[in-house]
């Protein structure tokens, strides 16, 4: 009995992955081959990007402050307070910026996307689109996919900048560090690779959270309770996948970077 349940669960899991991968394929195809109207994309650019600026700014700014304060308290006694600027910049650009922005956008935008699409699903509005020969992937998901792929990397860069600014302000006005001490080491230690890592991670996280939330919305069943359940699942799944992908991206990108560097040195 238990093995049958396990088998069914595995089958359902792989079916879900298949459906999700197919959705990404269809949406990417629709976005490239038959792009949705500019009006729909513009609406999403505003909704995902402009409307998230405030929350992303606060998150980045406060994280930068906390990072700088921790660095002073933990490293100051060991005479390493001078690395504060680099530590904040590196952490915000390569790790905290992409992760926190993705989390914030998931909470603010992803959940509402899932709820909106989910309630359209349970009230037959998605079926109504299909009955009018309009593919919901192209009409509903492709504009969000395009807008998310553009805006989430931009929001991440903005968040990183806000973090560096936050760290700078507390270092200068609270810990009495000089501007030069804070900023001078940053260009020496933050490389193009770090910026590339930031952009690659944020783009992948963006695609991930938009498609997971839209997929969960499209699979919603069971009325208002179903919409609530799907929304919770979409946020939790997005968070977990973002963390798992972050692990593999951090390892993978650093390995690739090391290989390239060694190649240059040997060449």
């Amino acid at each position, binding site marked *: 009995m238990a093995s049958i349940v396990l088998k069914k669960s595995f089958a359902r899991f792989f079916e879900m992955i298949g459906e999700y991968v197919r959705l990404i394929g269809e949406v990417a195809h629709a976005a490239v081959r038959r792009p949705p109207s500019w009006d729909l994309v513009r609406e999403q650019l505003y909704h995902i990007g402009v409307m998230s600026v405030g929350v992303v700014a606060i998150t980045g700014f406060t994280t930068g402050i906390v990072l700088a304060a921790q660095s002073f308290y933990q490293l100051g006694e060991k005479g390493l307070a001078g690395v504060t600027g680099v530590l904040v910049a590196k952490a915000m650009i390569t790790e905290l910026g992409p992760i926190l922005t993705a989390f914030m956008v998931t909470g603010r935008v992803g959940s509402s996307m899932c709820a909106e699409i989910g309630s359209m699903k349970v009230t037959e509005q998605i079926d109504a689109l299909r*009955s*009018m020969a309009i593919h919901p992937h192209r009409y509903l998901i492709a504009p969000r996919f395009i807008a998310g792929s553009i805006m989430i990397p931009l929001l991440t860069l903005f968040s990183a900048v806000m973090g560096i600014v936050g760290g700078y302000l507390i270092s200068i006005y609270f810990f009495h560090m000089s501007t030069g001490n804070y900023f001078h080491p940053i260009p020496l230690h933050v490389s193009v690779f770090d910026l590339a890592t930031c952009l690659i991670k944020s783009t992948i996280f963006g695609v991930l959270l938009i498609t997971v939330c839209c997929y969960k919305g499209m699979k919603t069943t069971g009325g208002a309770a179903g919409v609530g359940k799907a929304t919770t699942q979409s946020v939790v799944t997005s968070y977990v996948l973002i963390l798992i992908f972050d692990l593999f991206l951090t390892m993978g990108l650093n390995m690739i970077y090391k290989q390239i560097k060694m190649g240059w040195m040997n060449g």
Partner: protein
Amino acid sequence: MDERMIRIRNLWKRFNDNDVLAGLDLDAHDDEILVILGRSGVGKSVLLRHIIGIEKPDQGTIEIDDVQIVPSKKKEFDRAMRTMGMLFQGSALFDSMTIEENTAFYLRQHGNHLTGLRFTNEEIREKVDAALKKVGLDGVQKKMPSDLSGGMRKRAGLARLLVYRPSILLYDEPTTGLDPITAQQISDLIIQTQNELKGTSIIVTHDITSALRMADRLALQQEGKIAHLAYPKQFMEINDPTINFLRSSLQHRIFRKETL
């Protein structure tokens, strides 16, 4: 051209080990209203969803005007879809749009489905106003679907179809949940729409009074198949437990108390 408009052959669909459609055959003619009756859960709505392409059958074919649309290539399917329209049980109006935007939606997305030409904003507004006037909803253009009653939402859903004049109209429980007067108004609007568009209308309903009012032919769906299909008078004379029940419910009005 063969007079038959929609031809369904050997349609099968299984949900959770249950054959909802089990080799269903059905022909719906041009310029007729075909009403499908049946108990809850026999797959009447599932049948409509197959015709409009929302569901894909496990087996079987659907032809429209002798062109196979299920299974078929996407292009042919999309072309056929643009000639169809469906009124959903809950109206399925887009709740983020006004009634005007809902009604204009198809025209803005596809333009004229026959010529492929785009409409100007002025043309769209004229068509939308005319469609809303036809269903008795003049003056609600700027309202949201949530501001309307159930009957008004059904009429707005009908206006959304009227505006692009599909040749095949599918109605899923159009009078369910409405009071008898509103149900009669919706039935009359469906007849009026049919008289104007002269296409094929397929209606799925439980409401025998409305069914008899609207139908050119009546069908009874049972056990995944069309069990009976006939003109209304002949249909009501068929000896079948479900039809016998429908007949007796029409003949004997049951009152809880004989006198006040």
